[in-house]
């Protein structure tokens, strides 16, 4: 006990880590996803409400500072690239982002950088009489012109509530020399919305060269699904007034029959009492 108390006064060893990811969705405005975590003997724990300063292309230079943001209660911050940096952004084919935190009781001083090439991910479909295919094209900016990026794994999927469903048997499809990744769409009976529309997704996940790129498009390839609410139906899990009729009949039938007997027996006791009083009088 004494030893434990002695140990508990020691400050546990801690390593503060910044996670920095570049994201681009549908080839629009890019953003950075920043996460702050502390690593200790207890494992990796999220550090919340940590201020992070972001620099573009030049580290720790006042002129290069593009903004400051604090992580939220989940230890995450989404940092959008400000429109004021458009000319600087377009001026180069590749950029480096730097993220820094100052030392605080909750988090040590830490830094992280990520370099990305300006890239785009285009999504298209090819349909023949027999097959439907999804084609994703990955290109990067090279001195003002777009060139294909080969040998990059692209995930081709359909967006669902809980995540993405692969369109075929493979998890990912590699881009070829033209930067295209093609996969056959095998989900012929997947329910879509009321119009049978599905959302196709192409995803390059945390690539060393281009970061995380995601593009999506709507296609009428799903089966038509009309949601029918069971809310008003009688069921075992609904509100008391919506109990199944068979249960109501069975349960109340049993209750009424047994309690009828009980009430009858109580009337018998009253009868016995009356008979007793009659004898007395």
């Amino acid at each position, binding site marked *: 006990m004494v030893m434990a108390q002695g140990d508990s006064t020691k400050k546990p060893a801690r390593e503060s880590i910044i996670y920095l990811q570049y994201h681009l969705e549908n080839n629009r405005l890019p953003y950075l996803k920043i996460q702050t975590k502390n690593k200790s003997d207890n494992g990796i724990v999220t550090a919340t409400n940590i201020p992070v300063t972001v620099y573009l292309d030049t580290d720790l230079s006042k002129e290069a500072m593009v903004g400051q943001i604090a992580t939220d209660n989940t230890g995450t911050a989404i940092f959008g690239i400000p429109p004021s940096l458009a000319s600087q952004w377009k001026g180069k084919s590749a950029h480096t982002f730097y993220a820094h935190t100052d030392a605080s009781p909750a988090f040590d001083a830490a830094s992280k950088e990520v370099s990305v090439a300006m890239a785009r991910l285009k999504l298209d479909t090819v349909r023949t009489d027999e097959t439907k295919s999804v084609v994703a094209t990955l290109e990067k900016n090279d001195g003002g012109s777009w060139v294909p990026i080969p040998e990059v794994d692209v995930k081709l999927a359909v967006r669902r509530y809980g995540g993405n469903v692969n369109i075929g048997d493979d998890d990912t499809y590699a881009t070829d020399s033209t930067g295209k990744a093609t996969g056959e769409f095998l989900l012929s009976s997947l329910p879509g919305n009321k119009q049978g529309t599905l959302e196709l997704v192409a995803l390059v996940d945390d690539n060393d060269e281009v970061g995380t790129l995601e593009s999506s498009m709507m296609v009428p390839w799903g089966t038509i699904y009309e949601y029918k609410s069971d809310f008003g139906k009688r069921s075992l899990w609904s509100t008391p007034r919506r*109990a*199944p009729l068979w249960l109501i009949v069975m349960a109340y039938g049993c*209750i009424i029959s047994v309690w009828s007997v009980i009430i009858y027996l109580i009337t*018998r006791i009253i009868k*016995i009492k009356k008979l*007793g009083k009659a004898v007395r009088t």
Partner: protein
Amino acid sequence: MNNVSSFSSEKITADLYPKKFGTSGRIWTIGLIIICIIGAYAYYRQLRYGLVVTEMRDYVSWGIYISNFVFFVAISLVGSLITAVLRLANVRWSTPLTRIAEIIAVSAIVFASLIIIVDMGRPERFYNLALHPRIQSPIMWDVVVISTYFVISMLLLYLPLLPDLQILNSNKNKNSGFQNRIYKFLGSFWKGTVEQFKIANRSILILCISIIPVAFTIHTVTSWLFATTYRPGWDSTNFGAYFISGAFLVGGGAVLVAMYMFRRHYQLENYITDKHFDRMGKIVVLLALLYLYFNINEYLVPAFKMKKPEEEHLRGLFSGKFALLFWFCILVGMIFPMTILLFKKGRRPYLAFIAGVMVVVGAWFKRYLIVTPTLLHPFLPMQDVPESYKHYFPSWEEWAIAMGSLAGALLIITLFARYFPIIPIHETVLEKNEHKDI
């Protein structure tokens, strides 16, 4: 030992008339009251500080309160066994045991109801159960069935008591003023006319028929509280029959214990004879065999398959941290008493009493084993939870409340025997006369 048929009605009445407590009776009663007061204080603490005074947490949310509840419901079934089943089967030797069985049933069902309220975090909201009943819930079915069984048991206790109340009312000088007031209130209208007997006997017959399905329902529904939940150890279609057979066994054991205690302390050797122990012992052997059969079904079949989610639960019972308790329940709760009672010498009063105690104690812990180990083995692993969530051992408040409820049930039986004949006087006299006629 004398034959009751040779006794005069006056002697039978004198023998079976309620008697004042002796020294041992007073010590026993005071002891029970003290345990009840400690239990009440523990419950006050639970009301004051909340359920946090218990050791129940997110996983084990049903601890010994619910084990105790199942035990009480089980033991209450004895009323239907001894009174109804044996009466309908025209078994006459059970007459001296009927009232013992009925008062055990009533006191047990009273405390089964109370212990459910004790288990509630916000008991003052209990009325919502009546205002917003959800008929889809087995808990609601249980509330309905327990209330029904309580009323039927009370009627089955009361109606056969009416002729005895006439005897008690006609001996005012033997009673205190308090007793006379109770007897007058309960049975001054009973004059013993032919018409009254006719109505009473017919009502008792109807009660005996009605109480059997209700008794089966009460414990089946209690078993469904578990079996309708998809969990290792509870996910069984066998649970209703398993619970009912266990209930009859513990009820039979409790009657053996009560028979011995009343016989010894009220000098009822002429009325609760060795023959009664012999016959009741045989019934308990039959019930123990039946319950053992269901236990084999409940444990051996899942153990043969050893499905992954069941494995940890079963190994915990067979050879893990619950093994000592599990084998105690199987051996002491079933095998040992059955072995004792198999032999004629074992069915003598003292040994039968010991066997009865074994059955009751084994049955109490068996209910603990039905409730707790399953809750400690959910299908999903227990992760990122405080260490205290992974174990369960009741706090002193839980023990005090549980013991207080058991003492309370015994107190009801004790006080009933103090103020009412624990063996029906009128029926005993009637049977004596029938013997004479034969």
